[in-house]
């Protein structure tokens, strides 16, 4: 069981949680969260095209957790929390996979046209800020921010 991501770090500002859900870390379950991410991003004032981009970034992050974190192992979970953050959205993804070394995250150079390694690039290109944190008690906490005006 994954603890609520909302409790991981003390926050000084009021928290407006839009959606909090745990789901099996399986590739056929990612589609179930897309509508919630899209609607939450729009609720935070993001334009529809930007909301679609955020859906892609969250999708890619979940894929990375499933494929690289859990390595496709059955019975694992991902906890997703969507929080209004200023004039934008904060996405938190928590897993119980082995602790990730952010320095080892690579995406390919765009001029190098070949299949694969685009997911992390999409995440960084779409989101304003990404934080990879070790989660208390084990696992990883990924925070991704997207502001309406890209101010972060």
């Amino acid at each position, binding site marked *: 069981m994954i603890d609520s991501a909302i409790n991981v770090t003390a926050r000084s500002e009021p928290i407006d949680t839009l959606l909090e859900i745990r789901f099996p870390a399986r590739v056929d379950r990612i589609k179930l969260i897309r509508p919630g991410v899209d609607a939450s991003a729009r609720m935070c004032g993001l334009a529809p095209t930007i909301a679609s981009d955020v859906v*892609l970034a969250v999708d*890619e992050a979940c894929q990375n957790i499933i494929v690289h974190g859990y390595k496709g192992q059955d019975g694992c979970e991902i906890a997703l929390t969507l929080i209004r953050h200023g004039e934008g959205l904060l996405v938190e993804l928590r897993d119980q996979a082995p602790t990730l070394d952010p320095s080892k995250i690579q995406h390919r150079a765009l001029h190098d046209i070949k299949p694969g390694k685009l997911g992390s690039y*999409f995440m960084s290109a*779409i989101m304003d800020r990404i934080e990879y944190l070790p989660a208390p008690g084990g696992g990883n906490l990924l925070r991704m921010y997207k502001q309406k005006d890209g101010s972060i």
Partner: protein
Amino acid sequence: MTEATGQITNRRIVHLAGEIDLEHAPQVRKVLLGAVEQGRLVLVDMAGVEYIDSSGIACLIEALQESRKKNADLALIAVNPQALRVLKLARLDSVFAIHTDLTSAVQANS
């Protein structure tokens, strides 16, 4: 995700629809590489594609590379705005030949 493949002379037309994501990428990859194997020109109709992610893009890149190895051509048709935005994000919109419809794709490759 659904796909259907048609053939006109040495052209293979692959119709993709639905969500081209990690769940369906293996099936899409198989269909695209099969079409590249059989056709001199592969046209990928993306009108019905509702969503595409990096794994779907990877399938398209691999098919394009395989077609180049065979001196064949691969082009995308009727790419919807979401898919086009993802292609642009990856700066692949200038790598793939993209046509608005089948007629213009055929004319461009005749």
